[in-house]
């Protein structure tokens, strides 16, 4: 279980995506919430279009290195996580995008105002 996460705001096509760190209580809460999400329909899929797509969560190891694979992807009411036993993708529901909104709020103040406005508008649209 990671003590720290790097959250990537998956919004750009050309520029590198902005990121923020979630650690301490926030990291523990994130881990707990991810573990309690209900399963989603198998035919659902995260967004992959131009514009804001969602939040990608990467675990950081004790040495501060960020894992290259996604610990979770939060996108438009869907959460994709690897199965801890098989590594296969599991699809979970994030009703009302509550987890995505909570997570974004942790780091939004550190982001560029334009990016923040784009994501907040998308989250408000549901």
């Amino acid at each position, binding site marked *: 279980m990671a003590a720290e996460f790097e959250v990537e705001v998956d919004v750009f*096509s050309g520029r590198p995506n902005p990121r923020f760190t979630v650690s301490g209580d926030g990291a523990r809460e994130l881990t707990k919430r991810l573990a309690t999400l209900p399963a989603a329909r198998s035919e659902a899929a995260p967004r992959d279009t131009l514009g804001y797509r969602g939040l990608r969560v990467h675990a950081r190891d004790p040495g501060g290195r960020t894992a290259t694979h996604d610990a979770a992807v939060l996108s438009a009411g869907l959460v994709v996580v690897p199965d801890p036993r098989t590594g296969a993708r599991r699809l979970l529901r994030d009703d009302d995008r509550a987890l995505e909104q909570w997570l974004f709020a942790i780091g939004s103040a550190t982001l560029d105002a334009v990016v923040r406005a784009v994501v907040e508008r998308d989250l408000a649209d549901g």
Partner: protein
Amino acid sequence: MLRVTADVFSGRTNPAWVIDSAGARTALSALSDARHLLADDVPAGAGLGFRGLWIEALGDDATGGLPGPGRAYLPVGPQALGSSAPDLATRLIELTSAAEPAPGVAGDAAADTSLRDALAQQLELATRTLPTTQATVDDGPDLGGAPASHAATEGDATAAATCFIELNAFSPGFWNDNSTIRYNNNCYNYASNWRTDTFAQPGLGCGSMYGALTCDEVTRAALCDGMHRRYDCFPDPERPRYLVALVVAPGFDFHWYRRAREGFWGHKPGGTEARNVDNSGLVIWDPLLADRGPYTEFCGFFYGCNSQRHRIR
């Protein structure tokens, strides 16, 4: 009966054969299944060596399978119109082994075994040295985009120039199937068809990265990396020369598209998968008309080239 002429020589008369009725039926059957490989004439840009085969009907009983007035040209090598063109050419050459030299063909160009062997070798060489998924074409008006409406800014070359470009078959698997490649290469990598694993930024390679997210600035940076505006041609040594399009979400981000051989445009939104559909899920036949989400400003068409793609960082 059919006459098959090998378009191979520059100074000598090209060799030609007359294929009899039985052979002609076999040839016409093969040709009717491969109309997409045939042209009305020799393609522009055809060079020296074995360029293709002329197939001509010698009677009105042998026109089925041939487009136009009983005559067609099968390009081979860099001008081939499909990956199965070499196979079709080989089958036609094999049919000539039982054929007579065409009347009027000079004796020193008459068909013989060594000539057919030489043609087969040239065909194999022309096919082997070129990626079968790539074609060199004239960037004419039917390749998409409305050149007249985008040659209005000062300094743009116009469509009067004849530029040759390379079109690759759409190959998303290269970008999508390996998670490292998918995640670490962006739209600029895709448009340049060059993997750097650095999420390449226009202008970074030439030492002058874009300073603002505007059409002018990202264009300046891409030109600095070595791109040209459309119709400002690159010479053949700069192959491959790709036709690409730049769009921006002003003050926010940039995005690129690359024209594929199949006629549509491919793109790769950041670290996501390469695809040929827009934000509405529709195939992109023209980036000007595609649903580009927030990338509302169309900056123009450009050519990438070999030097440019090696320079990007």
